[in-house]
């Protein structure tokens, strides 16, 4: 079925043929076949492959990736969907809705997915590919449990769906989360919220300096993808950089790191003109908050601060706080309350976790991934096992 526009959604005709109370067994064969077919359809489509984020989604739906995720969920065989889950996707990320949909579907639910309000070609293309598959009679039951909708900001019909739904998934933004938390829901509604988060990068100076020129160049590219590709405005984009090592190594590593990033920025990135002005205003807010002038390095048009008092202030559009540490565990002293991801460079995530969690310490983060993986969404997100939450586990004993 095509995307249901705001007007058709309000008048409710879309509900004809939609199984609001239907659910399926967790990752049943039909669902897995559908997602495998979707993965193939995306990866075989020339236009789709031209959108890196859509290709990433195609790989996300691949059999092997899903098999890993399913194996990760305890008692998968005695799990079932709750019913209809409503998904609220952010307006400025083209494909977040699709990942949310797959999580809801794989867990066995019917899904009503609100699409981003802004138009992105890959959003339209992705929905078209899903649609084409759902027209296949073998996926008819999934078609009857799936709706992609556009709604106005304060849609009465959307509020009505949420009041009735068995589950709700809301992505992005504290204000959005507050708004949806406040809406009336069924007493049994299962709710998953992803509010604003912040993230950091840890660079082991020694490990980084030991990288070959090619590998160091590649890590600059990966860091670019984690940050500038999304205007440093995603929850997982690092704003703090922890530099691990002695003073001399750190200075040398910083020099290498930023100068390798510079050519990528100058050839591939232009900060939005309004955002550039906002960056100045951010610095103004920072000096007012801190109460004094800050030491700001503006080399290569990357803005770098070194004052720990800036920690917790919003850094955007290519502004970073750099803090030196002599031990991995020192990172814990400078994590913000809503810290989400720690990307690592020159040191393995497993090693970082081991040191952060040593001596019964609680690592105050939800993800540790290698640089370049900041934006790779997974079924375990923000510390939440989404497939487990979105499925009902029958207790048998």
């Amino acid at each position, binding site marked *: 079925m095509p995307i249901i526009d705001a007007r058709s959604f309000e008048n409710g005709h879309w509900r004809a043929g939609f199984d609001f109370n239907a659910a399926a067994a967790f990752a049943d064969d039909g669902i897995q076949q559908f997602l495998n077919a979707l993965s193939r359809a995306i990866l075989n489509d020339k236009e789709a492959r031209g959108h890196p984020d859509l290709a990433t989604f195609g790989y996300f739906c691949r059999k092997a990736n899903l098999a890993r995720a399913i194996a990760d969920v305890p008692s998968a065989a005695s799990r079932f969907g709750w019913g209809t889950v409503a998904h609220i996707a952010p307006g*400025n990320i083209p494909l977040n809705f699709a990942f949310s949909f797959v999580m809801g579907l794989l867990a066995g639910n019917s899904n009503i997915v609100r699409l981003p309000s802004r138009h992105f070609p890959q959003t339209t293309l992705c929905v078209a590919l899903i649609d084409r598959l759902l027209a296949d009679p073998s996926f008819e039951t999934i078609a009857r449990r799936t709706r992609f909708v556009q709604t106005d900001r304060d849609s009465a019909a959307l509020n009505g769906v949420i009041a009735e739904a068995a589950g709700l998934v809301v992505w992005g*933004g504290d204000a*959005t989360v507050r708004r949806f938390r406040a809406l009336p829901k069924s007493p049994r509604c299962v709710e998953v919220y992803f509010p*604003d988060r912040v993230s950091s990068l840890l660079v082991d100076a020694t490990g980084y300096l030991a990288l070959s020129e090619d590998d160091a160049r590649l890590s600059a590219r990966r860091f670019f993808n984690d940050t500038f590709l999304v205007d440093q405005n995603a929850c997982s984009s690092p704003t703090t950089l922890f530099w691990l090592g002695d003073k001399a190594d750190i200075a040398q590593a910083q020099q290498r790191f930023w100068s390798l990033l510079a050519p990528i920025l100058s050839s591939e990135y232009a900060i939005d003109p309004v955002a550039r002005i906002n960056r100045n205003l951010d610095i*103004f807010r920072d000096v007012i908050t801190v109460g004094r002038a800050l030491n700001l390095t503006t080399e290569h048009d990357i803005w770098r601060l070194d004052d720990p008092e800036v920690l917790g202030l919003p850094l955007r559009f290519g502004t970073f706080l750099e803090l030196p540490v002599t031990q991995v565990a020192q990172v814990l002293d400078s994590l913000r309350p809503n810290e989400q991801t720690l990307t690592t460079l020159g040191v393995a995530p497993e090693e970082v976790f081991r040191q952060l969690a040593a001596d019964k310490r609680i690592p105050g983060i939800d993800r540790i991934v290698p640089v370049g993986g900041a934006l790779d969404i997974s079924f375990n997100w923000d510390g939440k096992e989404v497939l487990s939450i979105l499925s009902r586990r029958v207790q048998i004993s």
Partner: protein
Amino acid sequence: MTSPILDDLIALTDHHRAACKPYADYCDTLYPRDHPPQSLAELPFLPVRAFKDFDLRSVAEEDVFKVMMSSGTSGARSRIYLDRETAQLQARTLTAIFGEAFGKTRTPMLVIDSESTVKDRNRFSARTAAVNGFSIMGRDRCFALDDDMSLNLPRVTEFLQQHDGKRIFIFGFTFLVWQAFCGALRAQNHKLPLENAFLLHGGGWKKLEAEKVSNPQFKAAIAASTGCVDVRNYYGMVEQTGTIFMECPEGRLHASAWSDALVRDVHTHAALPHGEVGLIEVFSTIQKSYPGHALLTEDMGLTRPASDCACGHRGVIVEVHGRLPAAEVRGCSDAYN
């Protein structure tokens, strides 16, 4: 070429650095003082939106004589703190620029706006400030519009009869002059005898851009419905009251003796040569009570040397093309809409 007001602006920068701590901290962060500025481009500048986000003043709280507010289309409004001295300087400068264009005699004033715009203190806006600011240039003020922005033709006719034969000063915001005045006269097929009047309008063409009205079309329409042929636009903002850029008889906006302008690249903020399009930065030598002497606007446009204009005015020429479009930032922060 160095600006004739560069020394004044350097002195003002020092003054504000000494008197406004947030401004000093901002400048010390972004503009290390390794050498004194050699040109306008090297002076620290503030994004004009800074006055929406922060309270910035270079005078003690008890010396604040008046707080000017901009019209806030998206909620936040600029707050401009004036002491007596700066308020006086602004009025005096405005009078001088006005006098240079139209002569020093105060003439009866027809305001293309409603009285409620200046009366209602809760609706204090750029329009209020502009109407009140320019009112000192005229006398016997008459408001052409009613509260619902409809033209009150009997009142205007009576006003014109009262001042028959005299030169009239017409003032209004560009879109109101176009829609509520010109538009209404055209709709009623009425012509007003304003051959002996001069019209000053400002506030931007944004609302007219949708209708694609050019300055010559605007002037032709005014001449057709009023006979008035001395029509001048000005470029100015509440954040730099006083030092407006006045349109000359050749149709170009010039800086005054108390102001200057340059254009910066939208992507790098590097100063651009005359003729290249970027963000307009405006300078004013009279803003002493708040650090508003060097402001980066969000208006796109270009500059030209004064010598490009036959009018003989020595101030740099500014061409305003429109507002910078709003940002479409990527990422996942609060984007439900």
